[in-house]
Structures are given as C-alpha cells and as structure tokens.
C-alpha cells in the first residue's frame, strides 16, 4: 500500500500546487461573497432611491394621502393646467404625474384619475398607488355603514399566523423554501464538484498517456493502484478546496454582514433628523425583527449534518463518476475525443439537478424525489437536496439514507471494477479513437 499512498501524495500535490487551482481556491469565495454583497448593495441602493412623482390634485379629496406612499416622494403641483403639469413633470425628469380631476364626490374624482408617465409604470408602484385610492374608497363605503375612520384603520392592521411543529417547536414561515434553496445549492455544488474534479481526473489520465509517463510508471505499479491513487488524490484536493471555501466563505460573510449591519445603523441615525423619523424607526425595528427571525431560521438548518453528508455523498458520487472519467481518459488520446463519451456521463447529473429543482422543491418526500434519491447515479445530488430538512422526524427517513448510501457503495465497487478493466487496456493503446464496441471488447481481455 506504500505505492498507493505515494501516488495519492503525488496526485494531490500536483493538483494543489497547480497555479490555477490556488487562484480558483482563494479567489472563488471572494468572488462569491463579493457578488452577493454587490447584489445586496445594489438592492439597497435601488430601495433607497425613491421615485419622485408629481400630483396635480384639483379635487378636495386625497389631500395628504399620496405622501404616505412608501418609497415614493411627492411633489404637489398647484394652479397648473393638466397640459402644463405634464410638461413640467416630463421636463423635471420625474417618474410620473397623478392627476385627480375636480369632482364633487370621491367616486367621481377617483374614476376620473389618471397616472401619466414616460414608460409604463412597474407593478409594484401601481399596486401602491391603487392601494391609496382603494383605502379611501373602502373607508367611504364603510363610513356609510357606520364605521369610523379610526375603526377602519384598526381593522386594516396586518395579521400573520403563528406556525409550530407537532412537538411545539415554533416554526417559521418560509423554512421549507429556504431549506429547498439551501439543499438545491448543495446539490448543485456536488454536481459542479463531480464534473470539475471528474474532468481533472480525466485530464490527468490523458496527460499521462500523451506524455508517455504511463509507460514508465506502469512497470512499477498496477494500473488499478494508479487509477485509485489518482482518483483519491484528486478527491482530497477537492475536499481541501471545499473546506477552504467553507471556512473562508463563512469568515467573509461574517465580515460583510458586519459591514452591512453598520451601514443600517448609519442609515437610521441619518434618518432621525427627518420628520418621519418615528415612522421610519418603527419600520426599521420591524425589519430588524425580520432579520433576527431569518437568522434563527438559518440556524435551524442542520448545517453540521449537511456538511458531513455533503462530504459523504460528494466522495461516493465522485468516486463513481471519476472512475468513469478515468476510464474515458484512458480510452482516448486527447480531450477532443472524449465528447462522444461525455453525454452519457453528464446526463444523469443534469437529470438529477432538474428532478431535484422541480420535484424536491415542491414535495421533498414524494415518490419521485425518493426514487431519485435512492438511484445511485442521481442520489448524491437529489438526496442532498432533501437532506436540508434534516434526518428522521420531518426529514429524510433513516432507512432511505442507509439504502441510498449502501446502493452507492455497491455501485461504486462495480463501476470501479469495470472502469479499471477499461483503464488497464486503454492506457497502453494509442492512435485509435475507440468506439463503444472497442470498450466492450476491452472488458473481456
């Protein structure tokens, strides 16, 4: 076994010392976190960028109502004709003009109202604008039924239902979605790792073949040792990269969150000078509560078991696929010849991703999801997507986990056995682009 560890060491170092590997390993988390931070920042920027609209109100209704709209600033226009108002709004570059005509009743005024803008307005904005009108209309109708303005305001207060598990644990809404997103992320990560590291193995086999090192080495070690050493060494490099990503990614996210948090406080204190300070404070404390809830939700996800199962499924799935990749690498002379063999390898992975995103999201423990999470060529991805909801009660039943891992191990052993046969013959064959029939023949040599 001394030789196997020598090969593993060489393959590992050859991968880890590679410049592009080092760059990828340390740059990716920075890029990822940077992207997320950028998106968050842009969202904040967009959010704080209030739309300005003008209001030409010729009626006696809606005097202060438009000013209450969130995210919208209002400029009131007076003593202008509609045409003048349109012109000046356009010249000032504002988002649009709300025109409420002069009318004797609320209904008339409302029905005659128009919103003029350069481009068609966004749904979000329109909803908000319509809410303003609707609020008054409802109020008016209710008033006629004897409900006062204050009473109506009290009724309209929002309500959200509390949810809990049967064990009495407080549940949070959206946990399922969050679980699915995180599970999907992990499943996707596994697919990427399998494809990336599988092709590393393939390229390394092809390199040995084209440089003819294989001829020198093969007299010292068994082809099987070489293949396994290569697969294990490369997978260790993958695990190294994953651990570096997890550690540095967490640190970076922490840093970014701290910076964003500080930003929020800065925003708050800046806002305190304004007259709506109180209202804003209420809003932002609600937001903080929300963030806290989401943070709790985040902590409810079984991270440790997710990471451990990620490693288990990554390693097993990777071992299966990379032995196939190794056999392909051994069969061909250069990378362009690998195309014909790649599709059958990649398609189960793609299938797993699609099935995962479609059926695991909607029903994580339904028959389709269960089936694909047991089938060994798709289970590493689909099972991991399901696992974010935990193991046992409310999550993946233990027997399914055991069966899927057992099936993976059995598949791994038989695929490695087949791949080794192709590998053994393939590495010493040059010059001919093999067909599937050739590969079948090699199995029988």
């Amino acid at each position: 076994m001394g030789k196997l560890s020598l090969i593993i060491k060489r393959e590992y170092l050859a991968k880890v010392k590679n410049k592009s590997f080092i760059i990828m390993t340390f740059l990716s988390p920075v890029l990822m976190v940077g992207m997320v931070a950028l998106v968050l920042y842009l969202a904040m920027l967009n959010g704080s960028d209030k739309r300005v609209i003008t209001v030409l109100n010729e009626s006696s209704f809606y005097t202060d109502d438009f000013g209450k709209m969130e995210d919208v600033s209002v400029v009131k226009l007076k003593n202008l004709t509609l045409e003048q108002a349109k012109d000046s709004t356009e010249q000032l570059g504002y988002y649009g003009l709300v025109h409420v005509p002069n009318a004797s009743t609320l209904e008339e005024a409302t029905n005659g109202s128009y919103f003029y803008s350069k481009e068609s307005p966004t749904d979000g904005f329109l909803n908000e604008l319509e809410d303003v009108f609707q609020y008054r209309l409802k109020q008016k109708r209710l008033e006629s039924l004897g409900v006062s303005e204050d009473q109506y305001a009290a009724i309209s207060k929002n309500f959200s239902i509390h949810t809990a598990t049967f064990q009495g644990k407080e549940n949070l809404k959206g946990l399922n979605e969050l679980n699915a997103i995180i599970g999907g992320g992990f499943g996707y990560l596994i697919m990427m790792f399998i494809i990336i590291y599988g092709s590393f193995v393939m390229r390394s086999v092809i390199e040995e073949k084209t440089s003819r090192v294989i001829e020198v080495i093969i007299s010292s070690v068994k082809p099987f040792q070489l293949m396994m050493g290569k697969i294990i060494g490369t997978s260790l490099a993958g695990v190294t990269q994953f651990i570096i990503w997890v550690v540095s990614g967490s640190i970076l996210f922490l840093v970014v969150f701290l910076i964003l948090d500080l930003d929020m406080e800065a925003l708050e204190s800046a806002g305190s000078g304004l007259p709506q300070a109180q209202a804003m404070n209420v809003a932002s404390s609600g937001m903080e509560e929300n963030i806290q809830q989401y943070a709790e939700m985040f902590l409810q996800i079984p991270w440790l078991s997710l990471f451990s199962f990620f490693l288990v499924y990554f390693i097993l799935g990777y071992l299966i696929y990379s032995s196939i990749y190794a056999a392909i690498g051994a069969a061909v002379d250069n990378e362009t010849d690998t195309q014909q063999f790649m599709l059958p390898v990649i398609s189960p992975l793609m299938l797993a991703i699609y099935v995962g995103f479609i059926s695991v999201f909607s029903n994580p423990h339904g028959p389709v999801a269960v089936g694909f999470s047991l089938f060994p060529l798709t289970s590493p991805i689909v099972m991991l997507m399901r696992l974010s909801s935990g193991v046992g009660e409310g999550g993946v039943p233990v027997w399914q986990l055991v069966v899927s891992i057992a099936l993976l191990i059995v598949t791994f052993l038989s695929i490695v056995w087949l791949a080794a046969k192709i590998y053994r013959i393939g590495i010493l064959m040059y010059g001919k682009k093999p067909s599937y029939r050739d590969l079948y023949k090699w199995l029988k040599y």
Partner: protein
Amino acid sequence: MSTILAAKGVSKKFGDHTALNNVSLEIPKNCIYGLLGPNGAGKTTLIRIINQITYPDTGAVFFDGKPLKPEHIATIGYLPEERGLYKSMKVGEQALYLAQLKGLSKAEATKRLKYWFDRLDIGDWWNKKVQELSKGMAQKIQFVVTVLHQPKLLIFDEPFSGFDPINANIIKDEILHLKDEGASIIFSTHRMESVEELCEYIALIHQSEKILDGKLSDIKKEYKNNIFNVGLQVSEQNDILKNLEEKHKIWTPTYNKQDEQLEFKIQLPSNDTGALLGYLSEKGKVNHFVETIPSANDIFIQTVKSKTK
C-alpha cells in the same frame, strides 16, 4: 550457463489478433541479449509480459529459475520505447517519485540520484522542470531512473533514440558498465550496428513467433554462405572469369587495367577453398581472399523475408 529469464511457450491474444504465439526464450545471466524484430512483431507485448503489465494467455515466465511474481518488479528495470515524464514536475522530485515507486526509500533514492546525476554531469538539473529540458536531457533522466534501483534485469527498448552521437556513446558505455557490474540486459532495437556492437545473444521475433535465437557469433557462422571476396593480380582476365563462372556463382567482377587487379565475389559449394586457391595461384598473385561474414542486418532482412507468410 544459468538463465536470468526464461519464457516457456508464451502465447498472448488480443481479441482476434495473436500478439505472441508459443514463444520460448532463455536469456543468460550477465549478458546483453538483443530482442529483434520488425515493427508489430510482438516484442513490446513480450516485454510487457516480462514486466507483468500484461499476462500471457498460456505459457509461463521464469525469473532466476522461479515463476515470475509481482515482487520481481523491484528487480527489473524497464526503459520503454515510448517514454515520457510529468511535464510540470521538477526533475529531482520526479526522479525521487519514480524511484520510490520501485521500492527505494527516499533517503536511499536521494543518495543514488545524486551519484548518478554527478556521474552523468546533470547535477544542476535537479530543480528544473521537465518541460524546460530537451528531449535528450529527458532521456538521460529516464535512463537514470531505469537503472537506479540496481535491477538484476534491465530492459532497454531503443535506448539511443533521441540522443546525439556523443550522448549515445555515453549511454552505451554506461550500459556496458552495468553489464560488467553483473546486470543482465535485454536490448530491443532496430539499429543493427548497435546490435553488432553490444549483443552476445539475439532472438528474432517475426509475426508473433520467434524465428531465430542464439549466440550472435554462432548465428553468423550458420548464416555464412561460403562467399569469398577475391583480389587477383593478373594481366589477362577474361578466361579466368569464364572458367570460374562455369562452375560457381560470381558477382560484381571488376578489372582495373592499370593495377592489373581483378576483383570479384564467388560462392563455393562448401567451405573447402583448396581447389579454388590452387587454381587462382596458378593464374596470378592472390592479393586478398576473404570470407564474407553476414552482418546482423543481413541476417535480419534475410530471415524475415524468408519467413514472411
């Protein structure tokens, strides 16, 4: 004479293709054994069987009298014809890795590598990457790696390819030196002049079968055709050739009038040269009379042609 390696009735098929058909060989200890044959004859398959890269379908191989086993790998050194190194690895690292795969400890491998690198005057290559080396330089590293673990049996497949004449000579001297130190060497090549120079024994493989083997000098004797090169000083040539051509086969007769020198090749029915010499001495002065010995090249071509199916 004891043998380092013996193949007994070795056959190997790849699908429908027979790579080796019932080949038996005995390679004596401490000699250089030429393994010859046209391209695709089955030499590489035989060498791979000796290295246990593939296994024979039938027949057996014996190493030093015992059936060939995986542990013998450490006592065989193989320099393949198609050979290479990891391009992005450093020379020293790579040599160490390959030596350790042959079972040497790291310390021992380092010590021996230093010795060989000094011996071949390539000590300053240790930290270079292989891709910076020329082809000949890389070949030297491969040679060192092949012999580093002091194998009892060395297999060199076209060891001189890629070398300039000076370095080819250095490697040739090293091979002879290794033989003097007790190694047995299998030498596979198409370059017949180096066979002539180095090999004591040869085997010729053609179309998956061994068609000839034995001591090179014995084979040469066998392949002598009683052809002689004759140089005769005479004033008149015509009737001599006419007389001789009645009984014998004659090639390339030339006559130089100024020197009165007649030269030709003649084949006799047996090794008995008395009658011819007597006849020639009567006619003039015999300047030279040499038996032509076939070269390895002649033997190779002649045998392969006659045995081609």
